């Protein structure tokens, strides 16, 4: 029984981290309708930034979010302006944005390889190796904090999207670009904002997971597939869906990892993913209207 609870608890914590990773992707995918294959590589950049802020300037990873978020907003705006925008609104947009972001991923991965070599790096904070005990269950301190922050970020985002004017504009654009334009919404501005926010969110996610994961140039590839699975599983643009998708995949991996092996765990997640794609492509929480 205790074993079972332990598996569930670590599955949920892992799921929370997965959900956090996919929030930015979800936003970009849901509003601009493009697949950002470089998503995981921005995560990697966020992790490196956190690593260096900690080792060189002694800035706590959770505090470094305050530096990384605005910096990545800037990066997102520039990338949208010079790479994504020229590709939008054409017949080949779908294919070409995928290829262009894949190219961007190459650039980021190899930039990291050139600058920081392929070594695995990790930081040691006051949370490293610590865990909290709760009713006989051990919870990794780093992951618990990541989970709490993830929920907080999801709530803030939910509030912005549902209750503020900008959020209403974003939802309008995501539902019908033409109608939104006719209502006087500057679609280009909303796209820029969404893309920048998506990149900044994944950068922040990188900062939050750095205390519990190794950093290396291709770390993004591992998380990339996971993030896509969760976004589709939960339903495009649905935040509650992404949260549920993340927790579900976390649980599946945790259980399959204990009972079989880590490779089979991934195979299980992928099979669930394919199944959902075939029978309910709008995702578990998707109901026609999105966000």
């Amino acid at each position, binding site marked *: 029984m205790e074993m079972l609870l332990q598996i569930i608890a670590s599955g949920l914590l892992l799921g929370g981290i997965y959900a956090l990773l996919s929030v930015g992707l979800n936003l970009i*995918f849901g509003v601009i*309708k*493009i*697949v950002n294959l470089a998503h995981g590589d921005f995560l990697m950049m966020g992790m490196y930034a956190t690593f260096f802020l900690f080792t060189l300037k002694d800035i706590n990873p959770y505090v470094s979010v305050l530096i990384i978020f605005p910096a990545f907003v800037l990066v997102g705006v520039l990338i949208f302006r010079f*790479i994504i925008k*020229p*590709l939008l609104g*054409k017949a*080949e947009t*779908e*294919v*070409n944005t*995928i*290829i*262009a972001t*894949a*190219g*961007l*991923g*190459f*650039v980021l*991965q*190899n*930039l*990291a*390889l*050139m600058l920081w*070599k*392929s070594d695995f790096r990790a930081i040691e904070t006051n949370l490293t190796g610590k865990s909290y005990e709760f009713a006989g269950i051990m919870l990794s301190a780093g992951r618990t904090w990541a989970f709490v922050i993830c929920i907080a970020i999801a709530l803030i985002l939910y509030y912005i999207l549902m209750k503020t004017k900008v959020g209403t504009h974003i939802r309008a654009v995501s539902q019908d670009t033409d109608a939104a334009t006719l209502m006087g919404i500057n679609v280009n501005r909303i796209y820029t904002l969404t893309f920048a926010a998506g990149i900044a969110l994944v950068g922040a996610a990188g900062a939050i997971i750095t205390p519990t994961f190794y950093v290396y*140039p291709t770390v993004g*590839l591992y998380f990339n*597939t996971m993030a*896509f*699975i969760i976004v*589709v599983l939960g339903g495009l643009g649905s935040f509650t869906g992404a949260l549920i998708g993340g927790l579900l995949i976390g649980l599946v991996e945790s259980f399959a990892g204990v009972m079989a*092996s880590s*490779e*089979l765990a*991934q*195979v299980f997640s*992928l*099979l669930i*993913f*394919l199944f959902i*794609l*075939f*029978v309910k*492509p709008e995702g578990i929480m998707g109901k026609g209207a999105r966000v």
Partner: protein
Amino acid sequence: MKQNKSLLILAILTVALLAVYFLPLVIFAKHILILTLFYAFLGTGWNLMCGYAGRLSLGHAAFAAVGAYTSIFLFKEFNLTPWLGMFVGGGLAVLVMLLIAYPSFRFGLKGPYFTLASIAVAEIVHNLLIYGRDFTGGSLGLSLPYVPTSLAMFQFDGKELYYLVILAFWLLAVFLTIKMERTRYYLEAIREDEDAAAALGISVNKNLIAAACISAFLVAVGGTFYGQYFRYIDPYSIAGFSLSLNMALVVVIGGSGTIFGPTIGAFVLIPLTEILRMSLGSQYPGLHLFLYGILLVVCIIYLPKGIASLPGIIRARNDKKARQLDQGSEGVL
């Protein structure tokens, strides 16, 4: 493009590439040529489904892996010549493709959803190859038992014969593409408007599945060639995301949905990456792929339809200029 014109171009290209065989080239140049033709072949196979029908697959490495693992496994365990193992692998790849293609097209998976499904399939194959250690050697992969040059066993000591083999593969694939004229038009119609195509009496699913199966078969054959040429396969190189992506890049940069686009793309991208790798790779690891990535992004932004669309763009520009000149002279009169 008219069929006869395409066949003529193919004949000229083949003669030219055959002539290259007799040139006294350094080993590195031969290696680049073989790799280039290898990617041109894979790209031509990929293009059949993904280019003409507009379903972007980023998981075709799965089929290359099925081909390579099957032929090497059969050779190792049963001493079956890879020439036959290649067909077994191709058949298995078609089976795997049917397993995915049928539900994908049946449930109308399109756009990014199809791409994500294809990535998932390749990841599944990749993970299963690592998991099935007893048969596949797990992460360590399989190496091909050495046999001195033997045509019957598809193993050669020099590079020359591999060059001829891949040239023949490429020739057959492009020839097949040219001959599938009717299917190509059907697929293009499906890509542009599926409902309209169906209304005109084109069997959408049948054509898509046929193209998908041929595409999987060709890529699996490419996988066997890879195994025989490099004599070693592992899940990261043959079932990894980078092989899938490279296949797609060659086609998209060259011109997707055109007969010679994949070949053009391969002849531009592969020598470039290999030369960059040779000259920069050892001093600055990563620099060559960094430059490669930048080139890709720039190419996609300025030539969204690939290099094969260049003549059309230039012609259109000249026409426009001519028209402006005409109008100008009319104005004077």
